């Protein structure tokens, strides 16, 4: 990664958190977007399935838009895990555009498709506003979605931007989850608040917020145990953790991030719905995008629940968590060069 790219990334993070970009880091979206897109595309090029490619080729190579093109488009969207309702919506919107004469070729359809997806996903750039002294972020999600890794990377970025971070090791259930988080905390050079395995996660969350206040932290990030959204008791526990955080500090947590794995299919909608019922989810983190180049489920979630995507994980190194960019996302999945002609 070039230094220019690193600076642009940091600038983008400053934007995400509403902070002043550090000296040398630009908050100019366009070069960074191009950089991010290149990286996504590199990742996607190797993982783009044989499955989506023929459909995309069918779309982009057709000179005229025919019934076959619409079928190809529908299939491409389904293959990207967008789900039927969102798929039908998008196809219908674009068909109307074509009916109005605004889409005449496969190529213009492709452009309209990325516009449509980007427009649906982020009318505004994502924000995780700070400034609450400390701002408390609660991180939730199903087992294996990538919560702990996301927290490690987030802490790292915040530290780079001069923020003092405290992490609360709230996953007291899974074996060695605390140790895993401690390794990340060490790498990011931040404090971690932990208790013995099996401890009450609410107590850990409370302690983390209290420690954050006492130590003058800017941000407190609280990890939680992975749980399937249908496990009633565990969802109640999460509701309690959220309540306890509110007792430790008025108005906290200020952000609740739901972490969703990019490989997730239609169950992602159930995850977003049921997690939202127990805690007020403010944003999504789409992880492991580089591995599969799917994640269309965020379109279904946005459509049904209006929860925006704030961050995406595009690789395994600590710098590979990125503020979500809807256009780069849409282009990475659906642009012709990434899929066609392989």
């Amino acid at each position, binding site marked *: 990664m070039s230094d220019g790219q690193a600076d642009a990334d940091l600038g983008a993070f400053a934007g995400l958190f509403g902070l002043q970009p550090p000296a040398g880091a630009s908050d100019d979206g366009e070069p960074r977007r191009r950089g991010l897109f290149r990286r996504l595309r590199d990742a996607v090029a190797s993982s783009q399935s044989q*499955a989506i490619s023929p459909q995309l080729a069918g779309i982009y190579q057709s000179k005229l838009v025919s019934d076959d093109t619409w079928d190809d488009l529908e299939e491409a969207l389904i293959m990207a*895990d967008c789900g039927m309702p969102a798929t039908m919506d998008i196809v219908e919107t674009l068909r109307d555009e074509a009916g109005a004469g605004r889409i005449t070729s496969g190529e213009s359809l492709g452009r309209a498709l990325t516009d449509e997806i980007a427009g649906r996903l982020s009318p505004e750039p994502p924000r995780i506003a700070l400034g609450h002294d400390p701002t408390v972020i609660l991180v939730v999600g199903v087992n294996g979605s990538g919560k702990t890794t996301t927290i490690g990377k987030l802490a790292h970025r915040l530290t780079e931007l001069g923020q003092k971070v405290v992490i609360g090791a709230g996953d007291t259930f899974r074996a*060695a989850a605390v140790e895993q988080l401690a390794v990340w905390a060490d790498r990011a050079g931040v404090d971690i608040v932990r208790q013995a395995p099996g401890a009450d996660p609410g107590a850990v969350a409370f302690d983390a917020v209290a420690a954050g206040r006492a130590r003058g932290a800017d941000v407190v990030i609280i990890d939680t145990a992975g749980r399937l959204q249908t496990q009633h008791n565990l969802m109640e526990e999460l509701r309690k953790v959220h309540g306890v955080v509110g007792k430790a500090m008025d108005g906290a947590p200020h952000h609740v991030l739901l972490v969703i794995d990019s490989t997730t299919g239609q*169950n992602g909608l159930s995850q977003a719905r049921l997690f939202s019922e127990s805690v007020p989810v403010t944003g999504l983190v789409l992880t492991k995008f580089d591995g*599969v180049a799917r994640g269309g489920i965020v379109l279904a979630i946005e459509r049904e629940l209006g929860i925006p995507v704030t961050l995406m994980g595009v690789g395994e190194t600590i710098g590979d968590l990125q503020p979500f960019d809807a256009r780069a996302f849409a282009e990475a999945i659906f642009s012709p060069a990434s899929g066609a002609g392989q």
Partner: protein
Amino acid sequence: MFDALTDKLQGVFSGLKGRGKLTDADIDKAMRAIRLSLLEADVSLPVVKQLTTAIKERATGDEVMSSITPDQQVVKIVNEELTRLMGGTNVSLAMSPTPPTVILMAGLQGSGKTTHTAKLARLLAAEGRAPLMVACDVHRPAAMEQLAVLGEQIDVPVHREDGATDPVALAKAGVAAAKRTGRDVVLVDTAGRLTIDTDMMDELVAIRDAVKPTSVILVVDAMTGQTAVDVAVAFQDAVQFDGVILSKLDGDARGGAALSVRSVTGKPILFVGTGEKVDSLEAFHPDRMASRILGMGDVLSLIEKAQQNVDEDDAKRIQDKMRGGNLTLDDFLDQLRQVRKMGPIGQLMGMIPGFDKAAKMKDVQVDERRIDRVEAIISSMTLPERARPDIINGSRRRRIAQGSGTTVQEVNQLLAQFKQMQKLMKRMGKGGLPPMLGV
């Protein structure tokens, strides 16, 4: 698990019911609905196409067209095709004739490899084998630590070397240690990896070549979407896995990945992970799963669950009491707790044929919190009160309500219901049939 798919298919076929013979248009309508359901269940598109083609071909054949009950014929065909696609009968894990049997676990990050390595080891130990787990995930922080903790929980030894960085050497050393110490099954846990990461896939191949496993098992998350096929094909091309564990099936994922993976690789699903605890690993039964998809219920799983969780003597004692009409509130509380041990009530209801549909139609919601309150009320009673509810007067009611954090009305309601139940039991004991409550 497959609830929503069940709904959709029932919707299609109730539309066809009472129509007599099916027209081509009817079949097309049913096929579209089946296609949609399968896609919503995350069955991958190529597999959906293949499946609907097969179903349509059979559904337009003579056996359906000339049948008096074409809808049932179509249900039967879909059931058969789903079962066939998932691999027919249950397949068990292969064991080497010359121990130790070596099992290599592989999968994407977060699919549940480490947890399921431990679950499988526990299952094998319960069958009387002597497993050893080998921690080879040198990449994820504290992954080896996690396996060690799980090993302690299930009392299975773990081979690990702190600070080791070469998973191939670790795996080899693990197998050697098993031979030395007389363990007859070695489970090698590996790091999660993306299929596009060629270095990591090469590492997996190197581990496989070093330990020559009896079986390579791919762990697949039941919540996986359309990508399941690509993942399965990529692992198949790299390491030729022998079977699959479908993890996290205890949620509401419809698990179409099971159909996809099986269909494109031909490899059987061996087990399903059905909970957070180390003992929640069950054999995969394609026929049961297909029945479930079609709304025929999953009575076999329910019975198995009951057998695992209900103490037989207890059940007999309570049955005798019920016959005699002597059921106390204490017994009732016992019963309630026994049933709850089996899982969330809503999930249990879904296993009863026709019940989930009926429950949804009447908008019956099982409110677990209400059951919590019933438990709290009874727990707030003294033992004499539980044995003879008649003595519970006004002031006792107020105390119980206060103690359980409920209201006097709720206490009254529970007592009235219990009284009614006792009456019913007495009548049953005398040989009369119980009236069907609320049905």
